[in-house]
């Protein structure tokens, strides 16, 4: 049974000057579940893209079932026997389950669809994976877990040699996630198939996988049988410990009255949250993608309505309902998706910074150019904008300087931001600008006693920048501690959902 199902040899892929895959080699056998791990940006998505045919590798080969390929289109990847189930669902909501299962490869006779035949096959597939709904159901009526099963049924129909699941449990509840795991084990034992399971969750790895591959910076950092690997090895391979430089803390976690309090807060995904945030403090929300970081920031900002619980701003109920109300209350958000939600690429640097302030700076009749110029100059100096020119279009700045514009927007004199929320503030930003932003955040908090909350998936950044760290896992706070008392390993272990003792019992 130990025939090789998939063999990847020296796979390379770069985007522009950035080498994302730097010669990845990987062998997976039939009847094996291989866990694939790596930090965000380690190259997992690119590797999967090359397997699914969404991306073309620059060099290297992919051998499936003895056939050598140098790259795929989505169609040839299917034909070769690789099936990929994506993190984001790719089902077509207005179509039925059966239509989705057969999409792109319908059963036809003389060009006419055979819906009965399709439904019969779909019923069989759904039964095999224990799904209890009819193939005629419209997908829009299914729950997230049910849709996941449709995705699996859809790819199983093509009898793939290799099944790739990209964080399949990210959107599932605990019970649904466990059921999925059982079905995958069953599938591995009942069919000639190799399964590649991409995940961030270590406890899934240890309960499901036969072997593990960790990617770091586009190369394989670890490859082991599960029986011979320890969780410390895995965490070390994902993110080797850096020399964390000694940092100067602002005032000790204070006894000041909290600026912001959350009491039993729930959103669709997050909760319950009980939390007090002090002024003049930087709090980090550390967690993996889908842990609820962004949801919390968006709820504070009025972009989501809590389903339960209350928020208090300086003791008064905080129910923003919209970002504009939240801004009026002294909140500001720097979103993670800078391009889509942060900058106005076609506007000048000054317009980007002053947009929320133009009204305030203006005279009753017209904009006040000299006040605007001065306000911009002060911000540009403070954030160390390069070049510090008010007329340059935003899109001509580097990523780091664009981010300085977005952050600077909330640091204009008289803007009165009490609570500054930052979502992945340094994602995709070069080292130099990153340092500027860190310094800026620390300066802001010491000089103005602003309350700063930032979400990050970078443990190094969290420990460098925060006074207090909250680790989130599946919408719950699992760690709340001063940054001084934590190490990167602590953060990763907590976020990956396993305390050491739990892990050992699972391994044993």
């Amino acid at each position: 049974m130990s025939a090789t199902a998939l063999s990847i040899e020296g796979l390379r892929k770069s985007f522009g000057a950035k080498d994302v895959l730097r010669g990845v080699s990987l062998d997976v056998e039939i009847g094996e579940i291989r866990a694939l791990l790596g930090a965000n940006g380690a190259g997992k998505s690119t590797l999967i893209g090359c397997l699914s045919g969404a991306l073309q590798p620059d060099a290297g080969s992919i051998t499936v079932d003895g056939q050598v390929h140098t790259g795929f289109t989505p169609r040839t990847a299917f034909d070769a026997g690789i099936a990929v189930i994506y993190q984001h669902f790719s089902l077509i909501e207005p179509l039925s389950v059966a239509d989705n299962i057969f999409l792109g490869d319908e059963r036809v006779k003389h060009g006419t669809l055979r819906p009965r035949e399709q439904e019969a096959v779909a019923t069989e597939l759904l039964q095999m994976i224990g799904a209890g709904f009819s193939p005629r159901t419209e997908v829009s009526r299914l729950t997230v877990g049910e849709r996941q099963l449709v995705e699996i049924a859809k790819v199983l129909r093509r009898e793939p040699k290799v099944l790739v699941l990209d964080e399949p449990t990210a959107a599932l509840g605990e019970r649904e996630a466990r059921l999925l795991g059982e079905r995958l084990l069953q599938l591995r034992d009942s069919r000639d198939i190799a399964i590649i399971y991409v995940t961030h969750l270590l406890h899934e790895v240890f309960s499901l996988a036969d072997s593990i591959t960790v990617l770091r910076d586009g190369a394989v950092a670890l490859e082991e049988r599960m029986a011979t690997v320890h969780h410390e090895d895995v965490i070390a391979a994902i993110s080797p410990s850096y020399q964390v430089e000694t940092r100067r803390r602002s005032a000790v976690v204070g006894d000041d009255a909290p600026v912001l309090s959350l009491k039993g807060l729930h959103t669709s995904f997050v909760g319950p949250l009980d939390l007090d945030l002090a002024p003049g403090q930087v709090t980090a929300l550390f967690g993996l993608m889908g842990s609820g970081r962004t949801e919390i920031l968006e709820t504070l900002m009025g972009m989501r309505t809590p389903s339960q619980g209350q928020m208090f701003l300086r003791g008064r109920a905080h129910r923003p309902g919209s970002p504009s109300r939240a801004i009026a209350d002294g909140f500001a958000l720097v979103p993670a998706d800078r391009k889509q939600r942060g900058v106005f690429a076609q506007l000048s640097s000054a317009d980007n910074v002053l947009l929320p302030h133009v009204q305030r700076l203006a005279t009753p009749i017209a904009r006040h150019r000299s006040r605007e110029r001065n306000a911009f100059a002060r911000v540009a100096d403070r954030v160390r904008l390069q070049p510090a020119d008010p007329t340059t279009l935003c899109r001509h700045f580097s990523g780091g300087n664009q981010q300085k514009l977005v952050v600077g927007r909330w640091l204009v004199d008289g803007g009165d931001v009490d609570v500054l929320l930052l979502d992945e503030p340094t994602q995709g930003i070069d080292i130099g600008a990153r340092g500027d932003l860190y310094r800026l955040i620390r300066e802001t908090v010491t000089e103005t006693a602003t309350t700063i909350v930032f979400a990050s998936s970078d443990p190094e950044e969290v420990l460098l920048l925060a006074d207090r760290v909250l680790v989130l896992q599946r919408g719950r706070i699992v760690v709340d501690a001063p940054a001084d008392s934590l190490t990167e390993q602590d953060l990763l272990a907590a976020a990956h959902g396993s305390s050491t003792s739990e892990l050992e019992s699972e391994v044993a």
Partner: protein
Amino acid sequence: MTVSLSPARGRIVGARGATGARVGRFVASNTLLIALVLLCLFFTTQSSRFLTTGNLTGITLQSAILLVIVVPMSLLLMSGDVDLSVGSVVGISAVVTGLAMTQWSVPPPIAVVLGVATGTVIGAVNGILIAFGRFSALIVTLGMLAGLRGLAEVIAPRPVYGFTPWFSTFGSGRSFGVPYLVMVAIVVVAIGAYVLGLRPAGKHIKAIGTNREAAFLSGVRVNAMSFWLFVGTGAAAGLGGVMIAARLNSAPATSAGVNLELDVLTAALLGGIAFTGGRGSIRGPVLGVLFLGVLQNGLTMMNVAPAWAVVAKGGALVGAAALDWMTRRTTSADT
């Protein structure tokens, strides 16, 4: 947001019994049909000439060209694209057909083929630019709308007329009481319903309109499908041009098909085609065309000024959007 009257969305809530709920569901999913019947009843009370075989046949004849074009346009909209050029494609195809018969001495059947081919080629150009060249459908087809109208006037500065009896019979004749043009429309509607309901392409169209990326990753040939939808829409508009020339027995470059694209889009919207793609039927837009036809005909019969008929058309559309909004609010209350 999308305007949609035909598809039932969830249950109607309320303390009514099972029968009441069933009636409610029927009303929700057949709003346009019910509105059409009510409109017919209203006009019947207003004019004794409305409910006559002659008048009803006249309405279908008036609607035939719109029907031919609304079918592929609806498929195109469901795939998330739009073709604004159809009015001018109708114009230039009518002119080409007319010139072929009068100036180039081509036999009428060949002239018909030339007219349809003109639309097909334009559709192919649209398709290549939009599906493969990644140009915006709005820009390309808006440019075609203006450019082709001008071109039609350049090649035929004055109305083309004086066609052979064979051709004018195609426009005005009938068999077993059914006008030939209506027969053409019925065939096109049948083809549309077949493609949407029974061919894989029907599923692919909705898939592309819902999530192009997901469709692509499922192995659907998304660009080829978009291309063929533009070709089909162009061909149908070409056929529409031939039909208009046959019915008018002339091909006026300045007026044939002017503003037709607006009527086509209005009918599609009334018929529950989501302009954002993904949802829709053939039945809906067909009823939409008939609704517009009955409205126009009935108001003319009541001697209402033509300008008011245009106002009524716009009102119907806004009313449909409002009604859809209200139904969706009631039906989503229980989810």
